[in-house]
């Protein structure tokens, strides 16, 4: 009985658990070349697109630099992929990055080490979502820098409503949270198959499937309730309402995806 008295277990608080897990994830993020490679990719893309010629006359694809950040008005249905070539592309490449990042957890066996401790499945989902959202938000910034540099180099038109531009950029950065939670969920579902995880993030994220599916709804604002729609809604005519819609949609979907991911992890074998 003497031994029993000494068996006191401390209950780790949510703050301590999530702090530890975020600490590990952010350490990994800043110490992996992957993160910096994707930041560079995000910076190079606008330069490549802006500098490319759009037609036989040699005219540029975009005559205004800021069209590389967002369209003038929401373009839910794109007629060619060029129309989609703005900051939304960050969400596609971000999906690949999140997939590789989470995939390493399973490949290295780190999850085995993690889930045998006090870590809750819900903490894992939150931590990966926050890290993924942060990395995508950083990619949005390097994308913006790449756009500015490329715009200045090719001397493209820089006229824009600054307020709307800032709101559009912030709204797209806010959307990172929702997208990151979707990619985290997809990686939880396909966690045993690294390749399928990446492919699913690419195609089921902002990839071809979603863009194609949007055509069913046509150019309808009802699409704003989805991640894709809200991301497109953040355009160069954005208002504060746009930001609010993006924030709410992003939070709502990240809650739903996190909940689904937690349920899947709680009800299935982890490793």
């Amino acid at each position, binding site marked *: 009985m003497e031994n029993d008295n000494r068996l006191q*277990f401390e209950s780790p608080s949510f703050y301590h658990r999530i702090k530890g897990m975020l600490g590990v994830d952010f350490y*990994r993020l800043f110490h992996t070349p992957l993160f910096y490679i994707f930041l560079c990719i995000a910076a190079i893309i606008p330069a490549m697109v802006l500098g490319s010629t759009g037609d036989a006359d040699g005219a540029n694809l975009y005559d205004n630099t800021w069209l590389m950040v967002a369209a003038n008005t929401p373009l839910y249905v794109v007629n060619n992929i060029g129309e989609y070539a703005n900051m939304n592309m960050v969400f596609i490449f971000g999906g690949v990055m999140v997939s590789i990042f989470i995939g390493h957890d399973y490949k290295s066996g780190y999850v085995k080490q993690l889930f045998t401790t006090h870590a809750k499945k819900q903490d894992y989902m939150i931590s990966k979502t926050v890290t993924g959202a942060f990395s995508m938000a950083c990619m949005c910034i390097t994308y913006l820098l790449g756009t500015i540099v490329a715009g200045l180099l090719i001397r493209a038109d820089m006229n824009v409503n600054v307020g709307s531009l800032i709101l559009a950029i912030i709204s797209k950065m806010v959307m990172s949270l929702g997208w990151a939670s979707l990619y985290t969920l997809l990686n939880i579902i396909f966690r045993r198959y690294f390749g399928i995880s990446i492919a699913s993030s690419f195609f089921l994220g902002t990839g071809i499937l979603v863009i194609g599916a949007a055509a069913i709804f046509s150019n309808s604002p009802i699409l704003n309730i989805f991640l894709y729609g809200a991301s497109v809604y953040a355009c160069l005519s954005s208002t504060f309402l746009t930001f609010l819609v993006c924030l709410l949609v992003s939070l709502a979907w990240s809650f739903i995806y996190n909940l689904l991911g937690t349920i899947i992890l709680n009800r299935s074998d*982890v490793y």
Partner: protein
Amino acid sequence: MNAIEIKNLSKNFKDKQAVCGLNMTVPLGSIYGFIGENGSGKSTTEKIICGLLIPSGGTIKLFGKDYCDIDVRSKIGVLIESPGCYQNYSVWNNLMLQAENLSIPDAKKEVGRVLKMVRMEGSASNKFKNCSLGMKQRIGIAMALLGKPRLLVLDEPINGLDADGMRIMREILIDITKAKTCSVLISSHILGELEKIATHYGIIRHGKMIEEMTAEELDSHCRTYVSVKSSNLDELKRWLNKKYVDVKQSEDSIRIYDDINPEDVVVYLYQHEILVQEIKTEKIGLEEYYIDLMNRKVTK
């Protein structure tokens, strides 16, 4: 209260039943040797205890609480197969990350402590991928020891360890269980090594616990025998069978399990012109007991 108490545990993988109706009790402060053939359900059971697999049925209590309780989980150290480390990070960084996960307050001091325990202080800056198999296992053990756990679950921790590594491992396990504040569940195929440290045993077969016993009980089960070697084993066996009741042939000797004096055997064989090359008294160890038990179950 027991460290682990499992009742009627089962686990199905599609059409395969890996564990069926397993009962297991690991007392506080014990070193519980978990033995079984490949695919008998040892690792599956350990993974369930650690929360990596969801059981299909049954109950698991750790220190009297549900095994999913995070209070208890924060005090479990685990090494399942191999340590889950990032290949490109140093040994130190991998341990620091795990310490961070465990919310250990003075992480640097704790990592230094466990590295010292496994005699790896000098290799802290090495990249994990450059470590040998034995070193990786030691890192895994160090990782499991972080935060002074109350329960250690070790799946094949001795694999790849050299003689020195096995000795260190033995010393650590005996040391941490001495004060009865830590209990150890350890599975291994190296039964000779397990026999040196285990205080309790559990033998599993086809997902069912076929025998649980203490080291003392094993000792009482293990009979002593007289082993005799001669150039003509057939002739030797023929004469021994005439006088003794329980005579069995092993690889290169004949064993007499009767309670006898070896000198009498030598005299008896000399009288029948059988030249004895070697004669000694031995005791059945865990390995032989286990093999014998398995054979008995197959025969049944």
